[in-house]
């Protein structure tokens, strides 16, 4: 079977007037289904650009990128939208929840762009909220939720279309460490359930929650190695707190 993500020699060049900025150059890697990967690097290293390409929000200037066995590097805008809707679940640093809209309605939003609209949309949204431990807060608006809860709603929104890949851009960037760890624990559990997770971060602590770390610098991959402490971190999931929304997944 083809790997879930296969990139060959990806490059992205932005033109700013006469100056060409090489955001990515010669990036090649493969991610198999079920992996949990961190993409890390200082700002300007090209990790956002890479995430946008992996998330089908942007196309590479050159190179090949196949997703789930399908070449997507040069697909049309409308085709990419369909792929994003079906195969990718995004979460962002600033959550991007619709204000004055209940958690449930926020989670429902991606399904509105699915064709056909699923008959059990509400049930799926409710289940997604349940999966992040917010079943009770479905009717709350973002203003009534803590930062951690907002990010969990965003994860539920990413999950609701049952995508193959969860793409998280600095998911803990706006959270304190407790809430951040909760969010990372959710990603870990979802990964343990088989979901491929890719977390883009500049923070080494966050990266350590994953199993594989790809480091970028100046648009190139400088290292790609397994995260060794990972097993220890699994045990660090807040087991001392019985109320914690996530229980450590058995490895």
């Amino acid at each position, binding site marked *: 079977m083809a790997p879930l993500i296969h990139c060959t020699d990806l490059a992205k060049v932005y033109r700013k007037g006469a100056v060409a900025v090489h955001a990515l150059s010669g990036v090649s890697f493969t991610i198999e289904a079920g992996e949990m990967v961190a993409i890390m690097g200082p700002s300007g290293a090209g990790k956002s650009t890479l995430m*946008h390409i992996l*998330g089908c*929000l*942007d196309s590479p200037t050159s190179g090949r990128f196949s997703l789930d066995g399908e070449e997507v590097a040069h697909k049309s*805008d*409308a085709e990419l*939208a*369909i792929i*994003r*809707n*079906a195969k990718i679940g*995004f979460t*962002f640093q*600033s959550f*991007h929840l*619709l*204000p*004055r*809209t209940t958690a449930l*309605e926020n989670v*429902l*939003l*991606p*399904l*509105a*762009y*699915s064709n056909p*609209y699923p008959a059990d*949309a509400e049930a799926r949204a409710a289940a997604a909220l349940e999966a992040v431990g917010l079943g009770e807060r479905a009717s709350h608006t973002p203003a009534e939720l803590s930062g951690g809860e907002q990010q969990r709603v965003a994860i539920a*929104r990413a999950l609701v*279309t049952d995508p193959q890949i969860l793409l998280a851009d600095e998911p803990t960037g706006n959270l304190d460490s407790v809430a951040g760890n909760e969010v990372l624990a959710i990603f870990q559990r979802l990964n343990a359930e088989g979901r491929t997770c890719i977390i883009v971060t500049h923070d080494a602590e966050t990266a350590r929650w994953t199993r594989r770390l790809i480091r970028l610098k100046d648009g190139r991959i400088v290292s790609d190695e397994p995260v060794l402490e990972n097993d220890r971190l699994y045990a660090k999931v807040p087991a001392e707190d019985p109320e914690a929304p996530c229980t450590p997944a058995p490895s």
Partner: protein
Amino acid sequence: MHAGTLVREVRRGLVLAPRNTACMLVGIVIGIAAVTTIVAMGQGARSKVLDRMKRFGFGPNVIYIGAGGGRRFRARPRKTTTLTFDDVQGLWDLPNVRLVAPYQRERRIRLIARRQNVVTRVEGVTPLWLITRGWKMAQGRFLTNEDLRARRKVVVLGTTPARKLFGATDPLGKLVRIKNVPFRVVGLFEEHGVSEGGYDPDDRSMVPLTTSASVLLHRTHLDSIRLLIDDVTRQAETVAAVRMLLRSNHALAEAVDDDFRIVTPEALLRWITESGRTLTIMLVLIATVALLVSGVVIANIMLVAVQERRSEIGLKRSLGATRRNIMAQFLAEAGVVGLLGGLGGCALGYGVAHLVAAFMGYPPLLSLKVVAVALAFAVTTGIVAGMHPARVAARLDPVEALR
């Protein structure tokens, strides 16, 4: 895109920036209100005119002569006493005139029965009145030549005063006092019902013209004369002959205006269509300017809103919304603004028309057709205005928009 979500998102988009929405609405509301006011007034006026024509029994063979100068069939500027029985005599002798029906009236006179009293119109007419108007009797008889000759104190009632005076009991043969003179009720008209202009044709009582002139109104001048002619094709020459006769009877010098008005159905219809045309031109002008202005306002506000909502657009794109989905949402918002503005405009316009009507004396009319057209214009304005902002929103690069 799922329709329910579209509805919810449009509502959210409009509620989230109430000031923007209000600004956009104001333009459309004012534009549509201006148009609906004019239409409602115009239709009210028109229906009043048609109403009058109907109530006057204005067939093509009718020539109406009103006392007092002035334009066409409008209320005369001052009381005129020059239209008299002599004119009636002269008119009978003109060629092509089949019959002449003189008429005088006083608008508000109190009628008293034994227990009840009512204020109604008292009219002095000849037996020919019934022929010129084609009315029928429900009970009893109409006035006769005998009544006229003997100046009998008999009265024929419309259903409105009859009901107030006598209730369910039979009014025939009963006595009614008019200006302290007892009149015997000899007939009851068929009921016609209140017209849509609010005019009640049944609110009247009729006595012989000779009686009204000598006993009730104490005057021999008339308020109007109605002619029926034999040959409709010769109407113009008959009108000219009538005019000549009256001018010479009234000894009007060459430069002096008529002290009477001759109204024919043709003239009336011409007047209606003419004023209809100027009204339409004015309307189209006002509508165009108003909607153009509100369209520009909407386009500008939405363009700013698109910039303010970049992250929302970026998010939706990342969740799988296509450019078309984004475009649809903004177009729908613009369309809904148009629809709401149109509804508000119709309501406001109708209200203003009522206010104006209070001074003008006829009720405004707003037909469903007009409302539908106004709404269609409003929605179209919204959507056309929203086209450019929606395209800008759809073309936003999702990566840029998410930043």
